[in-house]
């Protein structure tokens, strides 16, 4: 264990704001299980605490995934990759992007955030070591820290702050989707050429009008997406209904499937008609599908259903959504600056570019349902 830094703050827990936690990162020794794995006698296995497994299941059911950061012998990872007991198998089934080694916890948490494509501020470390919580608080202050007892107490409360206020039917599948993403990365590593890998993935994008059954997922996606989000609209189920009823408006959603599994609904566009033009009042695409041409194909499909292909996309600029501005430029659009944090992406009339060769687009926007 390294020397304690001189500027370590008190080891109080630091809980992120409500609705901010996307990933709970569990310490193992002394937190997830009571033993120290490397000190057990030959043949003995640590036993995950039933209350921790139950907590991880509750979190997963609400779309908050669990990860692991443990300062231990990296060989202990075999307990998760090839679990020798049913309890360890249950734990492995709930975990994504685990980190086991001798690095500082702050380094591990940063790596987990990077692998999952989420902000560090959406991580909550659960660790019964005050030193480890303090190390993370000092070196990765955006991340939250807490103890096992505090987290379990929160989950037992009538309104747990660690759980999102609203979830969709797709939330419970989030752990599976991250695990499928890990299999994709593993498969991609065997291809020297990324385009060849993408061609082998059998990527199928479906673009269709939203139905009332999509409402919760639309609201959730608008709230959760940051990198590929126009961030001008805040929605809850009531305001979503009010927005739809306020004029000539449509909601379009996109779903993605590949040979590794179903990504679910990964994109939403809130479209408004006015003065003979179509405006995308809200656009949000899951960061899980970035880097494979999907966001561009989604926008391009929308343009196919707009007279002349002209489309306006107002964007509230944040430090997180430069990728969306970049998307507009990469699709041949321009960005008009309206203020210090307001731009409008504009696509001039004309034929949109075709989707990449590796992506099949199933366009289900029938003429009577188009913007």
């Amino acid at each position, binding site marked *: 264990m390294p020397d304690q830094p001189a500027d370590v703050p008190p080891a109080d827990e630091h809980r992120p704001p409500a609705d901010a936690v996307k990933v709970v990162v569990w310490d193992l020794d002394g937190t997830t299980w009571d033993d120290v794995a490397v000190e057990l006698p030959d043949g003995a296995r640590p036993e995950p605490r039933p209350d921790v497994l139950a907590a991880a299941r509750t979190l997963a059911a609400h779309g908050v995934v669990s990860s692991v950061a443990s300062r231990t012998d990296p060989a202990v990872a075999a307990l998760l990759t090839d679990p020798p007991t049913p309890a360890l198998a249950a734990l492995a089934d709930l975990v994504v992007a685990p980190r086991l080694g001798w690095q500082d916890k702050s380094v591990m948490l940063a790596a987990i955030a990077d692998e999952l494509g989420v902000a560090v501020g959406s991580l909550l470390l659960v660790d019964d070591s005050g030193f480890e919580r303090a190390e993370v608080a000092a070196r990765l202050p955006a991340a939250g820290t807490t103890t096992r007892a505090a987290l379990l107490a929160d989950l037992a409360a009538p309104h747990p702050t660690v759980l999102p206020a609203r979830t969709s039917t797709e939330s419970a599948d989030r752990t599976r989707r991250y695990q499928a993403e890990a299999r994709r990365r593993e498969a991609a590593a065997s291809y020297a050429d990324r385009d060849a890998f993408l061609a082998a993935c059998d990527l199928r994008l479906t673009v269709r009008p939203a139905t009332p059954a999509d409402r919760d997922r639309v609201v959730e996606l608008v709230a959760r997406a940051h990198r590929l989000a126009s961030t001008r609209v805040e929605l809850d189920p009531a305001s979503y209904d009010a927005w739809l009823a306020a004029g000539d408006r449509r909601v379009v959603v996109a779903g993605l499937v590949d040979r590794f599994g179903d990504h679910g609904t990964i994109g939403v566009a809130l479209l408004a008609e006015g003065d003979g033009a179509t405006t995308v009042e809200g656009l949000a695409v899951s960061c899980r599908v970035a880097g494979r041409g999907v966001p*561009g194909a989604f926008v391009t499909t929308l343009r196919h259903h707009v007279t002349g292909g002209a489309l306006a996309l107002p964007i509230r600029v944040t430090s997180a959504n430069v990728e969306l501005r970049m998307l507009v430029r*990469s699709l041949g659009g321009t960005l008009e600056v309206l203020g210090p944090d307001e731009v409008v992406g504009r696509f001039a009339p004309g034929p949109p570019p075709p989707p990449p060769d590796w992506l099949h687009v199933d366009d289900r926007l029938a003429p009577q349902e188009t913007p």
Partner: protein
Amino acid sequence: MTDTDTRTVVLDLLATASGVSAADLAALPDATPLFGPPVGLGSRTGAQLLDRILATTGVDVAGEDLALESLTSLGALVGFVADRR
């Protein structure tokens, strides 16, 4: 640092982001667009490039150029960074 040094730095960072070698990038004319062939920058790799330019040179292209006009061509990006170093 000279404009030539800035060009070398930007091309190295662009090579990392795009997968095109720095030598091949150096042979391209300034008017070469960054999106589409032969550079083939995309939305994700473009954002990564601006992150790396900020970390390496201190120039915040995304923050100072909201319209991302500096991404229209190789020469425009090099010029934007050189003007602010």
